[in-house]
């Protein structure tokens, strides 16, 4: 059965069409779902795409967290459904406390937009189950607030439980332990700064993002 993906869209989201296109390319059905939706029945996977939800007012993701759809996202996540936050989506998931830590301004105080190399650190997340541990992927990043931080105790737990999903080979933003993405204890909720949808076609310079999207779409509940 074809995997059905809801791509959640907030005012200011701007990567939703790229994400739908990349998901379609690998054979998923993907719908744009506006942030005022109160139920997400019938979907197998949720993606919170990149952009600037609510203009990044207050803090990136801080306002989106209170959108009506987020209640349904929490229920979906606690039932074990795969929920992926890309870039601004990662920021939304930390603000919503579905993932620990926070994303601060890049240490350089510069917006960074380039392709980086990230290493797959675990295959126990819904985003990496079809990748191999240690695999290095070239995927673009595009952010001002991607500098992941958390307290020492949280960092220890993340490392011990192998919940670092992707790690930068060359840290572009100052994030602690070179972290580019993490997951929740059960691995179904994942947040990453790199944009796999921008590495989904030869024409874009890389297809390394496909293995992540394919992992995601290999799960039909």
């Amino acid at each position, binding site marked *: 059965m074809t995997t059905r993906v809801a791509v959640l869209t907030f005012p200011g989201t701007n990567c939703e069409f790229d994400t739908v296109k990349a998901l379609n390319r690998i054979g998923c059905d993907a719908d744009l779902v506006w942030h005022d939706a109160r139920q997400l029945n019938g979907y197998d996977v949720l993606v919170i795409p990149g952009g600037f939800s609510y203009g990044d007012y207050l*803090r990136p993701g801080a306002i989106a967290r*209170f959108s009506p759809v987020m209640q349904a996202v929490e229920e979906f996540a606690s039932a074990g459904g795969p929920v992926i936050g890309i870039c601004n989506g990662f920021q939304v998931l930390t603000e919503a406390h579905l993932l620990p830590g*926070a994303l*601060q*301004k890049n240490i350089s105080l510069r917006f960074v937009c380039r392709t980086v190399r990230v290493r797959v650190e675990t295959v126990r997340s819904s985003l990496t189950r079809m990748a191999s541990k240690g695999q290095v992927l070239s995927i673009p990043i595009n952010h001002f607030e991607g500098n992941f*931080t*958390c307290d020492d105790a949280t960092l220890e737990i993340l490392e011990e439980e192998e919940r670092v999903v992707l790690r930068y080979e060359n840290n572009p933003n100052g994030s602690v332990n070179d972290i580019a993405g993490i997951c929740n204890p059960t691995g179904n909720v994942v947040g990453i700064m790199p944009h796999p949808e921008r590495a989904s076609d030869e024409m874009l310079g890389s297809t390394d993002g496909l293995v992540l999207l394919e992992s995601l779409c290999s799960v039909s509940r």
Partner: protein
Amino acid sequence: MLFTVTVEVMPKASVADPEGATIARSLDTLGFPGIAQVRAGKVYQLSLEAPSEDVARSTAQDMASKLLANPVIESAAITAVARTDTAGIR
């Protein structure tokens, strides 16, 4: 009673503050000597209707922990002052 409530959100001491560090360097370049450190934060000023100063302050504390500050990286300091005139409030 109407209060002017100020919520001062600052990066925690344990958190790096590249913005503050850059401002410190710029001030130094401009010729201001003796800067040991600059920390950059945000200030929110609310006009808040509340029965007492304590209630105004605890309401603002609740606002800070739920929305205005991210407790992972920021702390919030709150002051509440009773307003005697309400001119300019819209």
